[in-house]
């Protein structure tokens, strides 16, 4: 954000005049104006601070974050870490943060996939496909997200109970208690295989970098996929095998009035994820479409003139250029999905806003509760911005 132009005409600066204490000196005026504005803002904040501390005293509301250590007594329906109401507020808020991250991350991945497909579909030469994608995008973008969330939640709640659950595929049940999926019993071997897979991804990435660097030197292309398949496929399988290859299917079945076993997706999480994904995908589709359209037609033609096949034109020439246009607005969509996940409170999914809200109602400490919400979101927003800025700088056009 430097406003200093690189124009050589500006290189020679005006000679510095001594500061005159007069209203006609611009520097004096600037200092006075800034002092007035900053002073005014500080005065307002001081006034608010004094009112607040007086009001807190009158209403006998405690201040400070001491309540974090107290027992929460706050039931939470779904949690990624171990939790029960006898644990502290801090633990409860941590559960909330993890729930927010869970829905945001899954939502970002799904919305990106769906949005990219929709964006490409809108540019399809197939008239019907392009029209349906266009109608979808226009519809979801023009309806409030909260309305869409309430709609999906109402639809899920209108589903039959567990006894008459919809059963589209063997082992999958959709009822007003949520979505039940078959899974397998999770054991240590699976965790180790997962770690091996992550290491495999890192290894493949490093190998690819090395292969590229070598290709630049000796011109020999090296296939990455055999190493990748070995590291990401065979290695986790070998680890799983070495630890005894445990596999116990866990298929949901009806017992009494509810399901037992299997993986549960609660109706709240399901409605929130569905709403966030479908809504954001509409915006991402427009970004992807604009990005592809922004690549000059001449680039397609030049790449084809070089004899590149259509697929490679897309992957080597068009997409890298489209990405430069796509990444910055995509970042704000990722931030939006994270911030919009706060609407969870309206349908009863216990994210950080919902839990902090309960906390501030129970303790009466409104300022601390809202400060926690804001701090969490600012941290998440800042992390996403930093990561995406780094990625954006990596793919940015390198000019002289």
């Amino acid at each position, binding site marked *: 954000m430097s406003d200093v132009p690189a124009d050589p005409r500006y290189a020679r600066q005006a000679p510095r005049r001594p500061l005159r204490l007069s209203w006609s000196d611009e520097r004096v005026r600037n200092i006075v104006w800034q002092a007035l504005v*900053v002073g005014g803002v500080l005065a307002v904040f001081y006034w608010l601070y004094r009112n607040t501390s007086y009001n807190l005293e009158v209403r006998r509301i405690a201040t400070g974050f001491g309540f974090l250590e107290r027992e929460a007594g706050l039931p939470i329906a779904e949690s990624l870490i171990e939790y029960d109401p006898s644990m502290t507020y801090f633990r409860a808020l941590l559960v909330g943060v993890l729930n927010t991250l869970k829905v945001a991350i899954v939502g970002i991945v799904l919305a990106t996939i769906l949005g990219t497909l929709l964006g490409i579909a809108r540019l399809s030469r197939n008239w019907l496909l392009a029209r349906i994608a266009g109608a979808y995008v226009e519809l979801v973008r023009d309806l409030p997200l909260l309305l869409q969330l309430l709609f999906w939640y109402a639809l899920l709640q*209108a589903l039959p109970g567990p006894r008459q659950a919809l059963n589209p595929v063997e082992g999958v049940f959709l009822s007003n208690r949520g979505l039940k999926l078959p899974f397998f019993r999770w054991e240590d071997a699976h965790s180790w295989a997962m770690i091996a897979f992550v290491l495999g991804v890192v290894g493949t990435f490093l190998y690819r970098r090395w292969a590229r660097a070598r290709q630049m030197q000796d011109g020999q292309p090296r296939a990455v996929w055999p190493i990748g398949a070995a590291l990401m496929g065979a290695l986790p399988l070998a680890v799983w095998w070495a630890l005894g290859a445990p596999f116990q299917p866990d298929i949901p079945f009806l017992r009494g009035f509810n399901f037992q076993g299997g993986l549960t997706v609660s109706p709240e999480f399901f409605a929130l994820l569905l709403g966030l994904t479908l809504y954001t995908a509409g915006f991402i589709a427009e970004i992807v479409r604009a990005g592809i359209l922004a690549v000059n037609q001449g680039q397609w033609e030049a790449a084809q003139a070089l004899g590149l096949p259509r697929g490679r034109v897309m992957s080597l020439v068009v997409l890298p250029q489209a990405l430069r246009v796509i990444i910055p607005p995509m970042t704000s969509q990722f931030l939006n999905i994270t911030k919009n996940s706060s609407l969870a409170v309206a349908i009863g999914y216990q994210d950080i806003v919902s839990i902090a809200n309960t906390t501030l109602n129970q303790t009466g400490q*409104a300022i601390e509760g809202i400060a926690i919400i*804001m701090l969490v979101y600012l941290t998440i927003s800042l992390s996403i911005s930093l990561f995406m800025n780094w990625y954006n700088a990596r793919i940015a056009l390198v000019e002289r």
Partner: protein
Amino acid sequence: MSDVALNENMPNDALPRTAPKRFLGPAAWARENLFSTWWSTAITLALAYLLIRYAVSFVDWAFVNAIWTVPYNAAGQPDASACRDNKGIGACWAIIADKHRFILFGTYPYDEHWRPLLVCMLFVGLYIVSAMRRFWNWRLAVIWAVTLTAIGILMWGGVFGLTYVPQERWGGLPITLILATFGLAFAFPLAILVALGRRSQLPAIKALCVLYVELIRGVPLISLLFMASVMFPLFLPEGINIDKLLRAQIAIILFAGAYLAEVVRGGLQALPKGQYEAADALGLSYWKKTGLIILPQALRLVIPPLVNTFIGFFKDTSLVLIIGIFDLLTAGKTALIEPQWQGFGVEVYITLGLIYFIFCFAMSQYSAGLEAEFNRHRRR
């Protein structure tokens, strides 16, 4: 045609011909756009099958098997048992027939419903006038001031023989329109100041503006609304109490101001540097330069993104549901609480969606058209 065929030695196929049949007409269009490759054909057939199947079942549910009215019993209470029996087969639009006044105007006194109706029409008129280019000058500010005052008088009453209606009884569509429109009206001047401040040479002012914009944009609107509902009362000196709607309105203004500031800043940056330099060369002061040269051009540039941002606020006003303010969405949700209408959420939400969609779609079409017109010089 005859003069073309003068040369009799000319081969027959050199004569001008009409385009072959297979490139014309709907069949050729379909071949080109729907069945060009076997892959495209497969997509077309699959989509057409799904579309027809779901469209038919939707029409069946929404129109053919729908129930439009239900009988009322002696006490004037609707009897929704017919709807309950029809659940899953047909829609129950009777809830809309019974509750539409409540959904649109909330708990506003029934006999005075013409007033919020008039207010809604005033808002729509205001939007239409604002969209017309001949009013894009100082007159627009006057029109907005007059209309918003008239809306305030109509809603509150208490003068000109109108009965006084306290703010607690307002509800429904007027609240949504008030939150969005007043939000824009007050956030816009704030946004211009902040955008100018962010590009200012004065470091302290620039830092303040950056801090404000980034802080607000980094947190969700809900946290600001919570702040408005639970923290604002603590901020004020004892004895001063501002009502909930006004507090939410302030939060929306602060929120909208940060986003609009970024839009305005885009316009300021898009303006060629020569404009700034020419104004400086004329010896204009900062405020004259800004008011006479920069803003009139920069604001014109940002009208399409401004409309898009306004669509965003219009949708976002629905979030006041979470702090219990009676806007359109809250009214719809409240209508569902009544025992006889419980479980008909889908019908109500579709109706509300239609209302939101009409407003947002009209605005987005307008903004897209305007953008295309502004970019006309770039088109080939």
